[in-house]
């Protein structure tokens, strides 16, 4: 039967199914609470029950859902929204610190699931929050990293048929490449690569600790950072983020942050012993080039600066330190991880300019990184080159190629539309945050406003400036601004269209 209207019952039923599946993830903080004998145990048990009940109730709306292309947008957008809402429940129930406020809790939860990494926690320490609560915060990022829909498709046989559409709507970059005939198998392959890299990373971090090179990196911290590095999340149970760890750990984090910004399909090829596909990939090469190039520029800028930190002393003039801080920060900001190994708000103007530039790059398609994404920039650069060429040869026919394959002109137009829309939303965000701050008389600098907009829309997390910087927090923003940021993180994670489509009249009519 052809439906003229969106089948919201079928959509809601699927959202319920996904929500019920996500409720299982509360097992992790429950186990942690048991291990450490924490009172937050009941918080997570209650949250799990609440989420499961609501999920199963929604599921009853349509026992046999048959979702189409239209429902895919609904399912994806609503799943992410509801998962963030229910992920916020523990913060509220525990009632500790600034995240006990419902809006702050929602902000923290959305920031977690969308792997943004912006925080409204005023005091990140075990004095205020339990270990299970801080690990839950880390876990939300890990769940959101590869995408809850990809996870759902991988584990729920019910989504085997509509799965491709759902995955396409969740990561609407230019095309989900099906690795295998069955979409569920593709989803599983992606998750296996994701889990594999995470486990390897945790093992390396903990090994460094056992060998005495990383005093602070105990098992809890190793797992906690494993949960937020590969999803390019950026949350850390340490208030000082990666700065709290030894230089060795900082160097170890860099390649894994970088790897998280690479298309996981390519990692799957590497795991299967095929390095050439990775090395020949146009997007990977540009990503590698951008990160390397910006790192070198930032290293030089830092080396020539007179920057000092209280912990490590002089940075300017010290090559290892300049390179470490520059490489780390560029790798962290480019693909939207958002870790900090120092308060980069203290960087000089030129160095911060390099970071701001990096914020607009984004990760690769099919990676856990956010932002505009390298592939789009690559296509845009290629069309620029074509424009210049056709100015000289007006009759030339030049298709845009990606990895040797011709890109459809329609896809090129789509990329332009996306990028322009992204920038428009970014500028609207800058204006709205400024207006909102002025409305409540909140003193804020331009750089803070700009980076609040890009850092939430691009799922980067920490921005530049005293308020949004890595050692600051978003807690001081007015509540209305924080709600807007929740929306920004939401639409940014889903790459704008699935959410905006729901706002059009045509979607709801026919």
């Amino acid at each position: 039967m052809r439906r003229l209207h969106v089948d919201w019952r079928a959509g809601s039923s699927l959202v319920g199914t996904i929500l019920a599946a996500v409720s299982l993830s509360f097992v992790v903080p429950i186990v942690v609470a048991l291990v450490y004998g924490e009172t937050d145990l009941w918080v997570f048990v209650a949250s799990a029950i609440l989420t499961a009940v609501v999920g199963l109730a929604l599921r009853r709306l349509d026992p046999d859902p048959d979702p189409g292309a239209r429902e895919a947008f609904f399912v994806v957008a609503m799943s992410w929204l509801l998962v963030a809402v229910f992920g916020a429940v523990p913060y509220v129930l525990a009632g500790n610190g600034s995240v006990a406020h419902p809006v702050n809790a929602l902000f923290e939860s959305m920031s977690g699931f969308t792997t943004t990494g912006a925080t409204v926690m005023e005091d990140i320490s075990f004095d205020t929050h339990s270990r299970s609560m801080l690990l839950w915060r880390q876990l939300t990022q890990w769940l959101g990293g590869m995408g809850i829909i990809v996870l759902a498709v991988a584990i729920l046989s019910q989504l085997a048929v509509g799965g491709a559409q759902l995955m396409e709507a969740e990561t609407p970059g230019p095309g989900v490449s099906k690795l295998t005939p069955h979409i569920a198998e593709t989803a599983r392959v992606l998750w296996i690569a994701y889990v594999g890299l995470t486990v390897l990373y945790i093992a390396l971090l903990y090994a460094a600790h056992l060998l005495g090179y990383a005093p602070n990196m105990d098992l809890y911290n190793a797992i906690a950072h494993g949960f937020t590095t590969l999803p390019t999340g950026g949350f850390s149970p340490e208030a000082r983020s990666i700065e709290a760890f030894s230089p060795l750990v900082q160097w170890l984090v860099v390649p894994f942050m970088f790897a998280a910004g690479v298309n996981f399909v390519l990692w799957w090829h590497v795991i299967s012993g095929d390095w050439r596909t990775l090395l020949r990939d146009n997007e990977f090469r540009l990503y590698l080039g951008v990160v390397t190039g910006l790192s070198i520029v930032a290293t030089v800028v830092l080396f020539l600066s007179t920057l000092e930190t209280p912990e490590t002393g002089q940075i300017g003039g010290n090559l290892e330190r300049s390179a470490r801080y520059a490489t780390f920060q560029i790798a962290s900001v480019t693909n939207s991880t958002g870790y900090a190994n120092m308060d980069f708000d203290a960087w000089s103007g030129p160095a911060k300019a390099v970071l701001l530039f990096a914020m607009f790059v984004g990760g690769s398609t099919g990676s856990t990184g956010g932002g505009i994404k390298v592939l789009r920039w690559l296509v845009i650069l290629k069309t620029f080159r074509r424009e210049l060429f056709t100015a000289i040869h007006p009759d030339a026919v030049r298709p845009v190629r990606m990895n040797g394959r011709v890109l459809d002109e329609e896809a090129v137009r789509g990329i332009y539309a996306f990028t322009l829309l992204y920038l428009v939303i970014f500028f609207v965000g800058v204006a709205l945050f400024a207006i909102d701050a002025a409305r409540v008389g909140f003193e804020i600098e331009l750089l803070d406003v700009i980076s609040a907009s890009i850092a939430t829309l691009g799922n980067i997390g920490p921005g530049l400036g005293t308020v949004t910087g890595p050692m600051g927090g978003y807690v001081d923003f007015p509540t209305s601004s924080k709600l807007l940021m929740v929306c920004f993180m939401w639409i940014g994670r889903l790459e704008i269209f699935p959410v905006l489509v729901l706002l059009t009249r045509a979607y709801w009519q026919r």
Partner: protein
Amino acid sequence: MRVIVVGAGEVGRAIATNLEQSHDVVVIDRNEETVEELTYSLDVLALRGDGTELETLREAGVEQTDLVIACTDSDETNLVVCGSVKTVTDAFTIARVRRRTLLETWEGAQSAFGVDFMVCTDLLTAQAIFRICGLPAAQDVDMFAGGLVRMAEFHIRPESPVANESIQEADRYDSLTFAGIFRDDELIVATGETVIQPDDRLVVIGSPDSVAEFAADATTAPDDDLDEIVIIGGSEIGYQAALEFESHGYSPRLIEQDPDRARELAEALPDTLVLESDATDLEFLAREHVDEADVIVAALDSDEKNLLVSLLGRRLGVDRTIAVIENLEYADLFQRVGIDVAVNPREETAEEIVRFTRTRRAEKVVMLEHDRAEVIEFEVDADSALLGDSIEEVVAELPDGVVVGAISRGGKRITPRGTTVVQPGDHVVLFVDARVLEEVLEAI
């Protein structure tokens, strides 16, 4: 030998003509009139029927046949013919195809489709175009002995230093043999006293280096390198030619008028600059500096259009024009009025196929000037007439009109001199006047 030719188009007819005297040829075609006409014009048995049907093939005597050549205009038909033949006999099958992908499939698994040898017409033509482009002023170029030996035909202009010299005088190039001269409609087999006259077409055989050296010296063609190649017409041949240039590291330009085909070509040819325009638009040609091209290849779908764009290119000042000419009768005329080289797809195909009809399987056959002479390569075995005495003595016993062009022994090239003695296992490249071809083929 009994040969069945399926399809009496231009290729089939060219093959039948070449074979009618020395073999028993049966031609199958579906067109009644063609069959009628063939019966009277050629000394072959012409049958009307569908070559894909076993009954027709049986009627043609497929069971007693050694060689079946499927050369209709349809790739699929040709493959089915070969497959059908293989169900009843082990005859050697040759299929002519246009699509290169079929050739690639066949090459990947020899004898796929029941085809023993596959000839891709358009690819052969494209390869010929590439070879000819690579040598300035050459009219025809071919390789022998796995690339050790090169044959080339040059048009000698009055300004050339070898014009009005005798062969003996001109013979100052290492490892180069002057094989023959085409003068108007006449073929002269070169001897020391023969004088090279202006407007002769001279055939030389030798090492690739010496042929190139001779080309640069003796022809007055501009000797700058080949870098600006313009292909006009995105036909299958134009596409294959562009592909051929690309695979040798060149970046040609291709002009195609149809927007959809232009887009298709641009997608398929990453290193080619595809321009969507009418190649006769002078403003466009000036804007794209086509006049500065080193060579233009006219590969449009009609001979007349190819002549037109070639003449246009000539007038603009293009160094060299090569045109694909389907009609053999036009080729000479067009070459006389302004096209430097006319490449004929049918001739290229026939060369490939004819070599399988030689009783002693030649390694390679090249027909010159519509088969007035041939250059053939073959491996010498124990009972060849070439064995024993020096070349001087052996050639004296063969009919007039034979020149030993080159010998390759164990992968090394030997420049044949009068005293050279041929050994079994040698690969010999001979230039043979077509009039004595049968006699020579018998003897060697």
